[in-house]
């Protein structure tokens, strides 16, 4: 015997993309967080050596002639912040069904994301470190490479949102919210990597 339940009212908007992006962002945060904690563990366990001026004992973790590209990474921090603001502008415009401003905001986000990507990639030649030279180098490439992969995913997400927006779906607030949420996650991930890897080293 089949029991037939009465049909319910039309379900509320599901916000599937927003929730799904939140779930993916949580997983991404754990990935970056896990890699950072391994980084910190290695740094903490590094043996001591005499500093170049011979005055103190320092952790033997960084290569002696390391040139950290601080300007690039600091500008990257500003860039990712601006990208978040642009993504939120897209949400604001989308709610008002303003396709022109939505597309413009997404275009700006795309520009920022490409600038961020460019800055991150430019870190490698600026620092002149060779991948196979030591634990620091291999771990540096691994964690920054993972971050670049996340930024690439952000570029793809922004491109998809831009195509949809210019294709007449600027009023899709679930998509714009999810897109903005991903950029907030990306800014948090970048900030964490910036602080631990680029500033604290």
């Amino acid at each position: 015997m089949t029991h037939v339940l009465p049909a319910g009212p039309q379900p509320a908007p599901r916000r599937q993309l927003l929730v799904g992006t939140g779930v993916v962002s949580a997983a991404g945060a754990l990935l970056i967080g896990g890699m950072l904690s391994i980084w910190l563990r290695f740094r903490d366990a590094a043996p001591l050596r005499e500093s170049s001026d011979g005055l103190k004992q320092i952790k033997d973790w960084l290569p002696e002639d390391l040139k950290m590209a601080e300007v690039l990474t600091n500008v990257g921090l500003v860039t990712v912040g601006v990208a978040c603001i642009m993504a939120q502008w897209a949400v604001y415009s989308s709610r008002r069904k303003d396709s022109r401003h939505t597309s413009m905001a997404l275009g700006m986000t795309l520009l920022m994301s490409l600038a961020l990507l460019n800055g991150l990639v430019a870190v490698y030649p600026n620092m002149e470190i060779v991948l196979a030279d030591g634990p620091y180098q291999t771990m540096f490439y691994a964690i920054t490479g993972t971050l670049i992969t996340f930024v690439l995913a952000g570029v793809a997400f922004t491109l998809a949102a831009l195509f949809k927006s210019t294709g007449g779906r600027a009023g899709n607030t679930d998509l714009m919210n999810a897109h903005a949420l991903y950029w907030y996650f990306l800014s948090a991930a970048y900030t964490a990597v910036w602080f631990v890897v680029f500033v604290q080293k």
Partner: protein
Amino acid sequence: MTTFDTHAAAPAAASSSGAGALGALVVGVGSWATTTDHKKIGRLFAVTALLGGAASAVIGALLGFERIGAGGYLILDLDSVVQLSSLYRVVLSFGVALPLMLGIAIAIVPLQIGSKAIAFGRLALFGFWMWLAGLLLCISSIAANGGPGGGEAKMVDLFLVGVAITAAGALAATVSLVTTVLTNRAPGMSLARVPMLTWAALTGGVSLLLTLPVVVGTAIYLYVDHHYGRLAFGGNKGVNDWLGWSMTQPQTYVFAAIGVGVVAEIATVASGRRHPLRAILLVGAGVLSVAAFGGATQVQHALTWTDTSGSDKVKELLPFLIFNGLPVLGALVVLGGCVLGLAQGKPRVIAPLVPAVLGLGMVLAGMAGHLVAQFGPAGLAGTVFEEGEFNYVIYGTVLMGIGAISFWGPKLWGRSLPRSAVFGLGTLGFLGTVLSSLPLYVAGFADQPAGVVDGFAYGGPQELWNGLAAAGSAILAVTIVLFALTAARAFRNGEPAGDDPWDAQTLEWSVSSPAPADNFASVPAVSSPEPLFDLKPTGSVK
């Protein structure tokens, strides 16, 4: 935005239009390979996992037989033993327990919550293929002397890539599952009203979401380091040090967590009434998942106990109890709640209850063993006692999976499994699990080392324990193969199942068997945790 896929009618027309048997086969395989129907994706995961379970049990038996007599290399050589030991752990963790539970949840949960489809169906399918490709990479790399401690550098690299891809694939499917539970529930179905399996899928899924990315991150580090210099992580020997946690306790509890929902669901149906301790069961499943996640993230939670002062003992005891004791408590609460629920009503003996409850008992035995092994003075670290824990948890999960397939199979395939076969195979599986695990507990107390088959006096009583363990693995291999064959035959030609063969209470039993492609013609309204009991005649349900 809604990312449902509505499913076109099955392309069965090709065969009737004279395309021939081969054409029909190609169309059939193609429709399964590209499906976004959650019921098919879930079955792909579960069936592949069962095949992996049978193969792993054969490997377990082979390794066990090597320890009989004087120990040493009767059938295998040293390299084969190292590779098969790695293969055994990798396949049982990532190739059996994880996909079996994930597959069952993917197949059933959308039906239980009144959803027409799974969220991000293509992502779930992509997750399956990614998981399978990664697992095959792992298996082939280990077979070619890769894997943890492997001697072939390129194959070790390949193994690390395989682990990352396997975990990422499982992660993609989990994202789809968790999003479905959070967003696709029928009107009126609050989180407090979701069925037990759905709740366990949500809590277990979140724990997977929080642990699998760490596996991926660690595998990335290991790959880059191993491929480019082997300076930081200890080369091939370091793989197990850094990734071993993902294939042992308590991470295996996370894989088993969805299974407690299976047991709670079947026990509720067997009791034939609204479960009086439903909230307690929800709490138990939640505690198990959260505590297992907590335990997996912590490295140092063993109890050394000796050479410590009173206050240090207390400082050690608290994390020890939280990270090792809480998962046991969660599983005990679910098992106890199920037994109490059955005792208070007039329970019916339904066949799937046997493997499901016995499976949870086995998982509990593994958890209790892990608790004992973490007690330093017992001296069980590095012994086969740990292999016994692992077998208990993983094979217990397989038993719960057998219970789940027997229970929900009629809804997925439209036909029932023979009751006597489920009883018999459930009991045989229980016997195999006990035999493959308990003797290793005993051998562990005699300091028999784990992961090797030589360098130890394997004669005397040890011969008996190792022989029993090998026989247990062989029995398990036979059980899984027999179950797969019985299920394949019954689901093809067996007795047709009714739409509600168990007189159950959740939404999946309100649709026809097998469930249609889009699940529900219209989204049902829900006003209690047991919506079907609301429709059944007063007096038949308490």
